[in-house]
């Protein structure tokens, strides 16, 4: 089963995103900050998709993204969708430059996420 990692410091968002991703046929992993996300990716290198919040304690989503994209041994990098309250155009450009593949401004719903998976060419149920 395809694995999606959900990274958000708000449990309510993780639960909601996790429910949607499961409905779309993914196995879900969770992390509450960037450091936990690094650990999850190390433990699950077959993760194909990361839904990534921006503002989190310990390590924020942007710094995690820079770290992830700098890991050379990852032959197949996961796709990264930012899911954030950062809604400014400059934030989008910054995330894209750092290697984000898509961007969702909160709030989100299942159709919006499915639409982004279509754009990324990721299959779902």
């Amino acid at each position, binding site marked *: 089963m395809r694995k999606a990692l959900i990274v958000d410091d708000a449990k309510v968002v993780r639960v909601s995103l996790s429910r949607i991703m499961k409905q779309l046929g993914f196995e879900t992993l969770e992390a509450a900050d960037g450091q936990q996300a690094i650990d999850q990716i190390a433990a699950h290198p077959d993760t194909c998709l990361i839904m990534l919040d921006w503002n989190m304690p310990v390590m924020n989503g942007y710094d995690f993204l820079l770290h992830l994209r700098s890991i050379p041994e990852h032959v197949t990098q996961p796709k990264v969708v930012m899911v954030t309250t950062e*809604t*400014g*155009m400059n934030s*989008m*450009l910054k995330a*894209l430059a750092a290697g*984000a593949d*898509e*961007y*969702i*401004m909160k709030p*989100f719903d299942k*159709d*919006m996420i499915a*639409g*982004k998976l*279509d*754009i990324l060419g990721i299959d779902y149920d």
Partner: protein
Amino acid sequence: MRSTEFNWFRTFLEQQSGIIISEDKLYLVQSRLKPLLRQHQISDLNQLAKHIKYHASSDISQQAIDAMTTNETLFFRDQYPYDALETLVFPELSHAKGISSPIHIWSAAASRGQEAYSIAIAANESIAQAQKRVRILGTDLSPTAIAYAKAAIYSQMEVQRGMPVTRLVRFFSQQGTHWHVAKDIKNMVQFETANLTEDKLVSQVRRFGPFDVVFLRNVLIYFSAEERKKVIDRIARSMRKGGYLITGATETPEGLNSKWEAVLFKGKRLWKLQ
């Protein structure tokens, strides 16, 4: 809503818009019309139907038609029509008409404009001098939808449905939670109200055509079989021979006087006017 009022409203809607609401769609009518009750302080749907009956040209009547005929659309809905434009239709047109010839496209059920602007963006990404060469007409039955489309301002939710973020940052500017279509894209598109079920449609859109491509997606299903054929023939009369009609994936154009050849693209059918 009582069956008398429901049946009267179904007939009214068909006369005004050509759209058929089957007898089992009471829930649809109720859910679409209910917001008008609060807005106009009318007590129930039976009263609303009566009001429409005796004030057929009033704002409320138009709003009731709008509520029944305006469907939510997405930017780049289904994606394949836009891939087809970029890899099949535009190259073919440039080959047949020359690389500097004008291209005329009609979004014939434009709703709030997302389809027409998606076409403009796709043209911009794949055609040299698209802003000079490509002219797009968007028409819809609803004046409210057309006013929205002309304003070219979309909410945060709307711009995130179907549109890649790379296109959002390239072709829109942001003002708070609203996103404005870039001027260069906006200038490629004109909008007008038009009724697909009226014969005057052909003369109304003539000055924008003849069209090389017409989008008429997920609309035919709402018309009776007879009306569907008339609509298809009107579309055909507005097009250049060899032009493409892009319908919903499951729709098939059948006219009385027009013939269409199916052209397969990624397993989906586009329709070429014979």
